[in-house]
């Protein structure tokens, strides 16, 4: 009642109802892979919430502080305020450790979700026109996420992260001409400087999150404006989106996903220890931990530093040290390639069309091969970051592992890339629906017929024209009907038993017809008197499943009861023996 009046009052002043109605009817495609980005978004929300809580207790200062608290081995020790306050936060602030560990886990999941999301976008070609801009925004957010993860785990000023910082500073110093100036401007002096922790803190809690919030807003705004892409399927064209509506279905399901992310992160934060800085000890320039591994998302850089041979270049009396190549060049090339990919692919294939229907990964074997090759390459680098641990586990010399990895880092990606390319090509040309159904003949067919990749896309179309819809098939029609004071329509494919309802009601028949014509150009329209009957639900199966569940529950309960009764009656079992 009160809510009703409030809504009316707001609407009278802002005229939100037409907008809201359209927004609530927005269609989300029903495919799990569209949820990956949402996981990243919700991890970011968790990061903000837990991070704000942490700032109330963390003291970003390199000044000396004496720790007094319940972590006995450090009681009375003098360390930096940053380190002492992190230990205090973990041991003496109630719920502090839970929030700190949840924050760290959220960062790990955040980067992982972004990466998996990126891989999905890459392999399905969702970055193609008109979504290149959103790809650029996404890659930028990946870089910012990596940077903020690194500053985040460096701030506690513990020994392990201190080593990581020292390595990063060395990598920056290796840049020709400007390296040492860059490093000194960032640090405010020589490593380890007193300014470093406060500067990282401001970057971590203000600068980067603010940019991230802006970019996330732009990312989402572009999705709303451009609408979702979707996979091929019955009733799906380049001119529509088929799925469930934002309200009610996706409101509930997205909130459920948010709650799942929170549940998993708090379970991890409570149960799985991460970054126990009190075990590493405070940073000291002359000390090191063994073994020393970074968080997983910077491990590829560390692995590259380990694998790169001791090659240094001298240019006119100047030095280009070895870390420049695996540290700066590799990182630069990686992100430049990511930024450039949509344009590179567009240039290579000459495909200038807008695409709202996604590729299956197999549809584009070259992209598949390049993607798998890159993923394998970075996978080997991540493994290489643990070469000392591998050597210890296998009881072999670490340099043996190193040499094997130096070969594998080139051989494995090449092999994996070629294999992925061949399989994708065979799958595309042949009749096999899945990898397991591939035959040798499919592979051979693939080898013969190369290059015709865009046969089904190409036609006599001018560039920038959207893809033409499938030709009108018999049995396919649009049905429009009045529903009280409004009009609805649906797409009906009689032979396929498919009926797809319009996502919202409109006021006139003309509007309904226009919307239907946009979504399904060239399909015949008929006006029907009233709502057509809904397709029958699979009632038999629901009933069966319900009875099955009930029977299972009852039988389990009965079994438990009988067991308990027997044990009690016999006084037997293992009870007496234990007594």
């Amino acid at each position, binding site marked *: 009642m009160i809510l009703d009046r409030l809504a009316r009052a707001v609407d009278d002043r802002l005229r939100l109802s037409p907008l809201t109605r359209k927004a609530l*009817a927005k*269609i989300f495609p*029903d495919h799990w892979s569209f949820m990956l980005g949402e996981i990243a978004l919700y991890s970011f929300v968790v990061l903000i919430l837990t991070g704000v809580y942490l700032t109330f207790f963390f003291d970003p200062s390199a000044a000396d502080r004496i720790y007094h608290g319940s972590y006995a081995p450090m009681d009375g020790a003098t360390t930096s305020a940053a380190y002492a306050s992190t230990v205090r936060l973990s041991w003496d602030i*109630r*719920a502090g*450790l*839970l929030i700190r*560990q949840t924050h760290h886990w959220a960062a790990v999941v955040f980067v992982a979700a972004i990466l998996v999301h990126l891989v999905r976008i890459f392999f399905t070609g969702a970055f193609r026109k008109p979504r290149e801009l959103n790809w650029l925004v996404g890659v930028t957010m990946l870089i910012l996420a990596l940077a903020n993860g690194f500053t985040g785990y460096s701030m506690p000023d513990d020994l392990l992260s201190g*080593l990581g910082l*020292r390595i990063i*500073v060395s990598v920056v*110093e*290796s840049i020709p001409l400007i390296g*040492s*100036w860059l*490093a*000194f401007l960032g640090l*405010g*002096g*020589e*490593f*380890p400087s007193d300014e470093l922790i406060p500067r990282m803190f401001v970057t971590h809690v203000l600068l980067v999150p603010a940019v991230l919030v802006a970019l996330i807003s732009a990312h989402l705004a572009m999705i709303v404006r451009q*609408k979702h892409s979707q996979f091929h399927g019955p009733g799906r064209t380049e*001119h*529509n*989106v088929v799925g469930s*509506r934002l309200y009610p279905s996706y409101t*509930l*399901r997205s*909130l*459920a996903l948010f*709650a*799942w992310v929170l*549940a998993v992160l*708090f*379970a991890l934060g*409570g*149960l799985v220890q991460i970054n126990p800085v009190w075990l590493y000890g405070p940073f000291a*320039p002359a000390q*090191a931990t*063994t*073994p*020393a591994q970074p968080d997983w998302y910077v491990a590829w850089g560390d692995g590259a*530093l*380990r694998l790169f*041979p*001791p090659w240094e270049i001298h240019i006119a009396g100047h*030095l280009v*040290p*070895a*870390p420049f190549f695996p540290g700066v060049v590799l990182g630069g090339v990686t992100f430049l390639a990511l930024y450039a990919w949509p344009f590179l692919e567009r240039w290579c294939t000459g495909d200038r069309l*807008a695409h*709202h229907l996604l590729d299956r990964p197999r549809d584009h074997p070259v992209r598949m091969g390049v993607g798998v090759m890159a993923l394998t390459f970075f996978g080997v680098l991540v493994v290489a970051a643990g070469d000392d641990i591998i050597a210890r586990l296998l009881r072999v010399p670490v340099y043996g592992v*190193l040499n094997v990895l130096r070969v594998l880092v080139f051989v494995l990606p090449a092999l994996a890339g070629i294999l992925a390319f061949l399989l994708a090509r065979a799958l595309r040309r042949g009749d096999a629906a899945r990898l397991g159904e591939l035959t040798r003949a499919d592979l051979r067919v693939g080898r013969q017929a190369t290059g015709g990749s865009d046969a089904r896309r190409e036609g006599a179309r001018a560039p*920038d024209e*959207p893809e033409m819809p499938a030709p009108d098939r018999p049995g396919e029609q649009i049905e429009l009907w009045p529903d009280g004071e409004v009009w609805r329509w649906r797409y009906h494919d009689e032979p396929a038993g498919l009926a*797809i*309802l*319009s996502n919202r009601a409109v006021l006139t028949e003309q509007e309904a017809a226009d919307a239907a014509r*946009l979504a399904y150009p060239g399909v015949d329209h008929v006006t029907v008197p009233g709502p057509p009957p809904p397709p029958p639900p699979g009632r038999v199966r629901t009933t069966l499943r319900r009875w099955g569940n009930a029977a299972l529950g009852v039988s389990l309960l009965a079994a438990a009861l009988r067991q308990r009764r027997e044990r009690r009656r016999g006084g037997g079992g293992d009870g007496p023996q234990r007594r």
Partner: protein
Amino acid sequence: MSRRPPVAAGPPGVSRRIVLSFLASAAGAIGFAVTYGLGGQTQWEGVCLAVAFAGLAIGLAVWGRRLVPVGGYVEEHEGFTPPPDEQAMTAAVLTAPDSPIRRRGLLATLGLALTALGVAALFPLRSLLPWDRTRPIRALKETPWGPGVRLLTSSGQPLRPEDVPAGTMVGVFPEGGTGAGDAPAFAVRLQPERFTRPPSGGHLDGVVVYSLLCTHAGCPVGLYLKGTGQVLCPCHQSSFNLFANATPVAGPAARPLPGLPIEVGPDGFLRATGDFTAPPGAGFWSRP
């Protein structure tokens, strides 16, 4: 109010499942509050919150999948190629005779002014390295070591040559600069007859002093394998042969560890006779 349609009846049992999930969620939240109130325990707090959110998640997911329609809706997509007349009209507005973007001369000077402002705005960034601090290249090349600077152990005691044991390395720091990041060094006693190359900093009866910082990425080379006379960096596994002037023998490091020239002072303690034989730690552009 009476015009509202009645609530749709979902499949039987679904509502009960949702209610149970939400109740479990509430129980988890209460459990968290109680755990916190009783003194806090990280694992239980985490589990309670996880139960609270998982209950919410299950309830909402079942609600979203069983009580409301899923799938089977279509939204039209108007495409992104703008109608040509729209495009032309917008262009006409932007390029009207009084349009600012047609005043080329004014725009050029405006661009000049903005560029000058942008460049001027970069200048204060130089203050990130305060002007009273040492310039990078000098700071990287110089350390607190110098003639007459005594070697202190990690506990701050000066070191006599006989205090350097055989078979282990002793971390040493310059007197008056123990906190410096580029100063850490180590002293170790070796048999001079096993030297294959003379130590760059010289030796006193087999006692040699080298920079502790790896020449690859600056980590402390903390691991001493005494049998082989090698030190190993735990970060990227560079190893250096101390018998051969600490030249790198394996891993990604390319340059030997700089040596520290030492002598015994009149008080009987070890002291440096100069700075490291080369800038310590990772390489940089202006390194000789």
